[in-house]
């Protein structure tokens, strides 16, 4: 198998990681991508960012457009299959590559095997650091109280629950205060949030109530989609909670304005 041939011969060779940036990080919050690179390099990886990537295809896949979802899946596979690992700073996109690509291409003689082989190498960033690279602590500081939202795909498709909490516990000065119902969906759901804004709003409102209850000054999660949804609601409500991707804090790069903060405010 190809992946076995590319495994390190000598123990010293760094694993080659292809970073799947995700479309939202690419467009809205590149700092998360750089935080991911820093964390991966600290964990001894050689990070590559293939040019030929755009999105994981979920907008098409979840809208019933299987044909376009398949084309995009093939594009991702072709761009990433030579790496030892594929890592994404999103449970949702990693879940798409890992769980859904094989299902999407299982009737395609040329691609189904490649999809399965790729799927075996795909990881969400934080769980990759902990489960694959064995990282137990990070070199970072945050002096304040944070709360963490479990994004659905990461939690239920990939089993991400303790890994982010374990690493957060090693951040100097950080206090984690759990919110009630941290595992309940924030109401984002990709195109759902614009197709059914009324329901989506009812859901995110319950979420922001839970967040407020913790009195935390910072909300973290591992998926930019959920974060933009919650930040958008928090800003509309005027609640004094900052919102960031967990990688920013773990990489000690939490000094850009938080999500939804203007460039003139937000820097303390």
């Amino acid at each position, binding site marked *: 198998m190809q992946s076995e041939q590319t495994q390190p011969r000598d123990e010293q060779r760094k694993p080659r990681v292809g970073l799947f940036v995700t*479309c939202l*990080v*690419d*467009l*809205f*919050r*590149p700092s998360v*991508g*750089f935080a991911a690179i820093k964390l991966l390099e600290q964990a001894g990886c050689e990070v590559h*960012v293939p*040019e030929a990537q*755009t*999105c994981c*295809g979920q*907008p*098409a*896949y*979840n*809208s*019933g*457009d*299987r044909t*376009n979802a398949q*084309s*995009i899946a093939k*594009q991702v596979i072709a761009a990433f299959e030579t790496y030892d690992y594929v890592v994404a700073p999103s449970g949702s996109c990693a879940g798409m590559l890992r769980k859904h690509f094989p*299902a999407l291409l299982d009737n395609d003689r040329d691609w189904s095997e490649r999809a399965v082989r790729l799927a075996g190498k795909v990881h969400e960033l934080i769980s990759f650091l902990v489960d694959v690279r064995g990282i137990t602590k990070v070199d970072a500081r945050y002096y304040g109280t944070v709360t963490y939202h479990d994004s*659905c*795909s990461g939690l*239920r498709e990939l089993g991400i629950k303790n890994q982010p909490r374990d690493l957060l516990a090693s951040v100097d000065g950080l206090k984690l205060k759990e919110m009630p119902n941290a*595992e*309940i969906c924030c*109401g984002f*759901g990709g195109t*759902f949030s*614009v*197709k*059914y*804004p*009324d*329901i*989506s*709003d*009812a*859901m*995110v409102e319950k979420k922001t109530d839970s967040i407020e209850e913790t009195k935390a000054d910072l909300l973290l999660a591992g998926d930019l989609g959920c974060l*933009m949804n919650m*930040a*958008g*609601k928090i*800003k*509309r409500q005027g609640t004094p909670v900052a919102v960031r991707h967990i990688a920013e804090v773990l990489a000690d790069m939490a000094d850009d*304005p938080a999500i*939804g*903060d*203007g*460039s*003139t*405010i*937000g820097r303390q």
Partner: protein
Amino acid sequence: MEPTSHAFKDNVRKALNDDQLQRALGNVKTGFIDKRAKARAALPEFDQLRDQARDIKDHSLAHLDLYLEEYERKVTYSGGHVHWAATAAEAREIILDLCTRAGAKTVTKGKSMVAEEIALNDHLEAQGIEVVETDLGEYLIQIRGETPSHIIAPAVHLNKEQIEQDFRKTHTDLPEDRSLDRPEQLVNEARTVLRDKFIAADVGITGANLLIAETGSSVIVTNEGNGDLTQILPRVHIVIATIEKIVPTREDAMTILRVLARSATGQEFTTYTTFSTGPKRPDDPDGPEEYHVVILDNGRSEMLGTEFREVLRCIRCGACMNHCPVYHAIGGHAYGWVYPGPIGAVLTPSLIGVEKAGHLPNASTFCGRCEAVCPMRIPLPKLMRKLREREFEKAASPWQQRAGIKIWAFFAKRPRLYRRSTNILIAILARFGRRRGTFRYLPFAGGWTKYRELPAPQGRTFHQLWREQRNERVHK
């Protein structure tokens, strides 16, 4: 009942603005969830039982014809009659005919979702037969002229005050100054009213949680005991069930019952689990003189050969809706037909068509909680996605949405073009949004900005910045 699933968005708006409903939904969110979690924790092999239950139903569905024939043989042997109905209309006619032949004036009914599916009550009442629901929740919605809003707790959308009002309006022969403040007073009053009906009934109709091929038995689970009285007291007992309720053996039935109550109400077992097999035998102390089973297909056999077969494993426990954040937000009536929640989002369009119920499988974030708790391990999100695909293929989804996806995909499939266009787009957005940090309104994003700000992009795209950095790294 005429489905209103096509008017889902209006239904949703109504539900979200209904304060009373919103308060009532709070109970679903806490009660059922905690109880199930406790029941699951108390039974270490619970998840293994789920696998077994799934396998039993998969096996039954693969040999459905065989087991249904066996079931019919056993029912006939024990002196009962099996009637096959391909459609809802056929089932209604068969039942009406049985009631007419029994000379029925009053019919009592146990809780049955299939009876709701075929709108049985309206049909019998139109022929002058009095139909009385004997499950408390069903009775409440019957006197209000409503449909169930939950498959195991049909009146979960009501509060005590509403029920008191309805009782005073309906039970006019009882003293006006009676006290109905406490829940037990309401229950007692319902009991008193229903007792007379049980005795007066000529025919009793129940649903079935399971049919057992080995013995020709039907099984119902209840907590009120009303089902027993419904099927024992009248002279004629009619069971209405659908084809997928069949399991091969008693053993299989027990496995499924062990996950059913735990998933539904968090009980180990419901208060009553009742097996009925044929009419009263000479030595039996009680039981009906006639025993009929009406087995309905209503589109299910067409699902057998498709990927939707998995839905037919459903045992109607309600766990998926109890754990569904969308159901928590809008309640059951918004779904517009008999089956609400995630199971409704899959079953309704499968039975009445994506053209009429296309909204339901779309109104999900795919959070996956339903699949995580379903005792029969039905991949509900996957099936909702399949329905979206079916809708997309038939071009039944709104054209703007389809066009939007196609345009987006055109760019997403061409990385260079995508990069060039997004660089420009993001630069513009960032320019306008950076100071404030968010957009209060953006054309084409009205669905988002109606309730939320849209966070502005940081400035340039990751790939732009990465390219520059990499060049720097190389030149160093």
